[in-house]
């Protein structure tokens, strides 16, 4: 018999997300702000916010696509404010559900209801297969959570993923495809991929600029599932000026003939804690 998904110790449980599903076109999730989610400026990392977006957006898109199934094509996130305490709320809505694609928009607010970011996701609509999960139960109206009473983060997100820095200046990380971050298809979960991109880009950009910039934008294009691992990253810093830098990040699955799994374009800026 297949093990239940997600297992007791899993990213989706340990983030302690709380969901409030509306009708079939809206959904809300809250993520408590804990130090393990934060960069060294004390604000929640873009990669952590992207994980929140991925979870709420993916669930809503799967609902909108029923009876079909979906594959995540891309995720974009623009962060404009620092979340440092309380919780982050993600409000997702379906902006398009067509024959071939579903598009979701997600607004992010901090605990004072200040808008701190905007995200979009698009999905390819696919014929349902037997192995695709039935999400109707988990998306039923009313509050819900995947967290167990014991769920928590033991360490910063990137450490929980088991990431090893190979060459910080080149943004080279090596990350196993571990059970803690698997999606229901047995590959690295899309939010975990965004966390890896965030960490790799930050390392390379800081080395290139000697500034303590933090990742504020992610444009992630998912090309293939990272099933085997380790996942390896490579970063090209495309340009930098005072307080900002841009980079391109490539992820390959080293255990799968180094197939490119993900491309991302990243912006990092000076800390948003100083922004009004």
């Amino acid at each position, binding site marked *: 018999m297949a093990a239940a998904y997600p297992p007791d110790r899993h990213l989706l449980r340990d983030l302690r997300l709380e969901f409030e599903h509306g009708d079939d076109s809206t959904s809300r999730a809250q993520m408590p702000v804990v130090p393990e989610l934060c960069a060294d400026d004390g604000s929640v990392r873009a990669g952590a916010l992207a994980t929140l977006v991925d979870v709420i957006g993916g669930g809503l898109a799967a609902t909108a696509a029923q009876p079909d199934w979906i594959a995540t094509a891309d995720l974009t996130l623009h962060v404009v404010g620092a979340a440092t305490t309380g919780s982050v709320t993600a409000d997702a809505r379906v*902006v398009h559900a067509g024959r071939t694609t579903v*598009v979701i928009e997600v607004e992010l607010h901090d605990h004072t209801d200040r808008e701190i970011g905007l995200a*979009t996701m698009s999905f390819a609509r696919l014929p349902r297969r037997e192995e695709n999960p039935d999400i109707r139960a988990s998306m039923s109206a009313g509050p819900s959570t995947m967290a167990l009473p014991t769920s928590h983060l033991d360490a910063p997100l990137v450490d929980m993923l088991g990431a090893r820095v190979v060459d910080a200046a080149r943004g080279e990380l090596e990350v196993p495809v571990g059970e803690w971050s698997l999606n229901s298809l047995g590959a690295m979960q899309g939010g975990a991929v965004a966390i890896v991109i965030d960490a790799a880009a930050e390392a390379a950009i800081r080395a290139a600029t000697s500034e303590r910039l933090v990742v504020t934008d992610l444009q992630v294009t998912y090309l293939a599932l990272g099933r085997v691992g380790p996942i390896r990253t490579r970063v090209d810093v495309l340009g930098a000026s005072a307080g900002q830098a*841009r980079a391109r990040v490539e992820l390959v699955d080293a255990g799968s003939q180094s197939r490119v799994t993900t491309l991302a*374009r990243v*912006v990092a800026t*000076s800390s948003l804690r100083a922004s009004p």
Partner: protein
Amino acid sequence: MSASPQGGNGSGQGREVSRYIRVDLHEVDGDGEIRVEGHAPASPHLRGPDGGVRAGALLTMLDNVGGLCGGLAALPDGWVVSTNLSARTVALEHVGPMRIDARVLRQGRSSVLTAVQIHDEGAHDVLVVDGVLTSAILVPENGPPQWSRPLVLDAGEPPPEPVPGIPEWLGATPIDASTIEMTLAESLRNPWGILHGGAVASFVDLAAGHVTGGITTDVVLHFLAPNRIGPVRAVARPIGSRADGTVLRVEVRDHGADRVTALAVVTVRSAQ
């Protein structure tokens, strides 16, 4: 919604946008991979108040060359329409000509992803734009276009002088502090009779500039539905500012059809 199954002679409906942007393109031997290379001058009519080529024009080049590359990948059974594009501008000062390189990243049954980069050949080949275009595969009513391969497609006859700037070309006019409007001129439609994706991208760029007075650097643009009737309106709402500029949400509506047709998130740098 822009990759155009028009005839290969550079004429006909849907070619007006290519004529205006002046993109010549050809298929490149990609060692089994489909690649398309385009060239376009950094024409004065494409430049904004800061002197650089407007982001909307760069995105139109990206959509044009990337869309054609995706379309060639979809042949012989189908053709493509753009569903979304995302692009970051790395250099804001331009000499020209621009070289637009597109290659297929992934092809599935229902979609094609193309990576598109724009380099400034007149400025030591510096990278100007790094982007990705996603296109949906469909089967046009009259079948996919018939091309001679390897494909060569020139920009056609130049537009008559004086060539209008992008705001005048689109017929964009302000409605209020956050909204601009354009009529859906025949010359801006693609072969399916809907507003060309490059024109939508340029309209989004203008809307962001209208609200902030700045220069668009990054765009994420989702094409949600065709603009068929018009007038078309774009409403831009700033969501916050950072060291690299202001981030805005831009929503495009076909006012005549009363529906949202595109959603964009745009980063705008303050004018120097």
